[in-house]
């Protein structure tokens, strides 16, 4: 049953979909940012689960001379960059939300649309 080895990816995809649901279904902008951060963390988890090797260990070469099996370090490096970029965009999004609150008086998507004159 090849599918039994895939359940990790499916669990991560379920988390991704919950994050996506919060992002598109909730009106409050700060709640959307929280959903976005859940989505980002689950994408990172997806890549890290690709890198894992059965019976492997963390990719740090020990002092003793044993030949160990290391988990793949390349996705770890890419995900470090991804976390950094994620926090940068989150900080910028939160700054924008603060300015939106000051300009419009609300951070709910429906009210923002009404104030701007678009249909909700």
């Amino acid at each position, binding site marked *: 049953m090849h599918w039994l080895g895939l359940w990790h990816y499916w669990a991560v995809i379920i988390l991704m*979909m919950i994050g996506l649901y919060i992002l598109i279904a909730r009106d409050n902008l700060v709640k959307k940012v929280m959903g976005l951060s859940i989505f980002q963390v689950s994408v990172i988890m997806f890549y890290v689960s690709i890198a*894992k090797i059965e019976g492997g260990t963390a990719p740090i070469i020990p002092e003793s001379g044993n030949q160990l099996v290391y988990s793949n370090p*390349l996705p770890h490096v890419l995900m470090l960059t991804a976390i950094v970029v994620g926090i940068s965009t989150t900080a910028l999004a939160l700054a924008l939300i*603060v300015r939106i609150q000051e300009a419009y008086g609300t951070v709910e998507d429906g009210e923002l649309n009404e104030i701007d004159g678009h249909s909700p």
Partner: protein
Amino acid sequence: MPLPIEIVLFLFLLSTAIAIARLEDLFAAAMLTGIFSLLSAGLFTIMDAVDVAFTEAAVGAGVATVFILCTLSLTAKREYQQPTKVLPFIVVGITGAALIYGTLDMPAYGDPDAVTHRHLSAKFIEIEERAMFSQNEHAVESARHGNEEKAVGLPNIVTSILASYRGYDTFGEVTVIFTATIGVMLLLRGRRHKKSFTSQSRSDGNDVVKEQPMRMREKIILRVVSKAFIPFIFMFALYVQFHGDFGPGGGFQAGVIFAAGIILYGVIFGLDTMRSAVPERVLVYGIISGLILYGGVGIVSLLSGANFLDYDILDTHNPAHGQHLGILLVELGVGITVTCAMTTIFYGLAGRGKQ
């Protein structure tokens, strides 16, 4: 064979995510987002990604939660009730089904023969192992003779890939932090317009809240505990910064921990004390100097005749020492920039309230 702890952690993560989706109290949802990040850091450790776990715990459970809480104090504290719509469920269901269909071709979890483990990663691991385990002095030299790739000779393979083999990517990452901080400064450093709405414009229903900050005399336990531990936080940040070559750590994690120490000082002792201890001009110079340090190492190697960010040239007698020196300087640049960036963002978000 899934470990029981993996199943338990996934169930915790699932219930936390569902709780965040359903909660209307945004402060509680913000704390749960921090808990989500911390649980995922535990899951990363089980999946052998210790550097990623370290960074996720410091960033997600640390500064991200602080930023979201600062934003919530300036905007609404609860979200409006909404009728449940069907369309998002349909969209999410279709997307999820498509993604699951896409994973059916992937190798099983933990498969040692998967394609992703060959080629580049195998070469990196093989070069670094040969460099670490040879005993003679010119070990790294002999590791180079067989390959065109240059061996670094550090125990932490992730740091050597991050700072040396993939140094350009990390340079772009530091530039991203720099740009985001400039964006936040442009948005939040100016003065608020007179006609702007504040969070008190929306009546919340429980507006009986006292807006007076607590006097210092009343906060004696918090003051003593934080004064005792902030030096240790800074020392731990320095340890993480310079120990990143030998264990999990590095510039980014150290910068975030350092910024967390400064933010703790600011939260307990007040923003004005914090601004006099760490002025904003110092932070701006710090952001710029970290980036210049990183780019400067690259330019020095350009001027010495090698490629951009090629650390071999930094020590002509022993290229391995050049690599170590280059990685040290580069990680220092990353750490300085990240510290000052996170603290500047906190200044921007927290200082917006009382103008």
